């Protein structure tokens, strides 16, 4: 217990750069979403969704004229990664289902990364569970606060000249960065490039169907390259 305050401070210091980046993207999200869905729904979306990738996707698809089923299908597939991250995290968390259910709110790409990093430094056992749960909670809280603060500032500053121009460029930059971070092998990176190529073809040849491109291209490139193969 004596070293807990130090550990908390160290965890906050570790997550601070990521939280700052999340705040920046929160500002851009607030500025981008406000003209499309209004300030109330923009703030509410950050309060109850708390997922930059999901919220930017939602706004991007709505701006492209996608219907609700297409938005929901894309969001569902986008959140499939939570199944993987959560499953990996479970081995480092305690047996309390209620506690895991509460901690699940803070499952993000960033908090997942910091938590796994911290847990891997401790031998399996009660200490590791404590470290993992505390890291997930602290990093999640920091990210949540940064996301909400950024969204609020973005809503307030939506009319600032220059910010909207930057916001218009944020979608490709954000998702290229996310693709790069999540493509952990060359094979997966090539498949991601394939999805981008399929999407480009759909945008040019079937522009009315472009909103479905993430679903279609994502599933096409994720299939095994050979029948019966895991590759």
């Amino acid at each position, binding site marked *: 217990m004596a070293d807990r305050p130090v550990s908390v401070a160290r965890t906050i210091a570790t997550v601070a*750069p990521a939280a700052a*980046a999340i705040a920046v993207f929160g500002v851009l999200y607030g500025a981008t979403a406000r003209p499309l869905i209004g300030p109330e729904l923009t703030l*509410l979306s950050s309060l*109850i*969704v708390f*997922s930059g*990738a*999901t919220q930017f996707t939602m706004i*991007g698809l*709505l701006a*492209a*004229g996608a219907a*609700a089923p297409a*938005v*929901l299908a894309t*969001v569902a*597939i986008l959140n*499939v990664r*939570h*199944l*993987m991250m*959560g499953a990996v995290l479970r*081995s480092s*968390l305690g047996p309390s289902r209620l506690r*895991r259910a509460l*901690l*699940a*709110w803070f*499952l993000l790409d960033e908090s997942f990364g910091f938590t796994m990093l911290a847990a891997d430094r401790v031998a399996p056992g009660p200490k590791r569970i404590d470290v993992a749960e505390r890291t997930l909670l602290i990093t999640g809280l920091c990210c949540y606060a940064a996301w909400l603060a950024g969204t609020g500032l973005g809503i307030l500053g939506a009319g600032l000249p220059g910010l909207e*121009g930057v916001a*218009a*460029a944020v*979608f*490709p*930059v954000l*998702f*290229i*960065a996310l*693709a*790069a971070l*999540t493509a952990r092998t060359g094979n*997966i990176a090539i*498949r*991601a490039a394939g*999805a*981008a190529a399929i999407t*480009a073809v759909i*945008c*040019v040849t079937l*522009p009315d169907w*472009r909103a479905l491109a*993430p679903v279609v*291209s*994502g*599933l096409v*490139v*994720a*299939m*095994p390259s050979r029948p019966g193969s*895991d590759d």
Partner: protein
Amino acid sequence: MSGLLLAAIAAITYGSRLAAMAVLPRPTGRLEQILSRVTPAIFASIATLSLFTDQPGLVEPPILLAALGALLVTPRRSFALCLVAGIAGYLVGGLL
């Protein structure tokens, strides 16, 4: 956009977190392989989608250069570096 759609999106998002951490067993085998490939593909697809307009056509050059800037530093696999390179590309595009 309606509040109902937003609530459904929130339910899907938290539901996926909850299911993984408190309900479902860990995916294994071929399913694990397939799922591991979907996420970056979706991100790459959405990035590409944001470079096209409804016409169809490409977006403004500064946005294309922002994407190019981020793309060039992807081998470093740094979120912050992609952001900085994207902003740099956007600024260069604005100057040109």
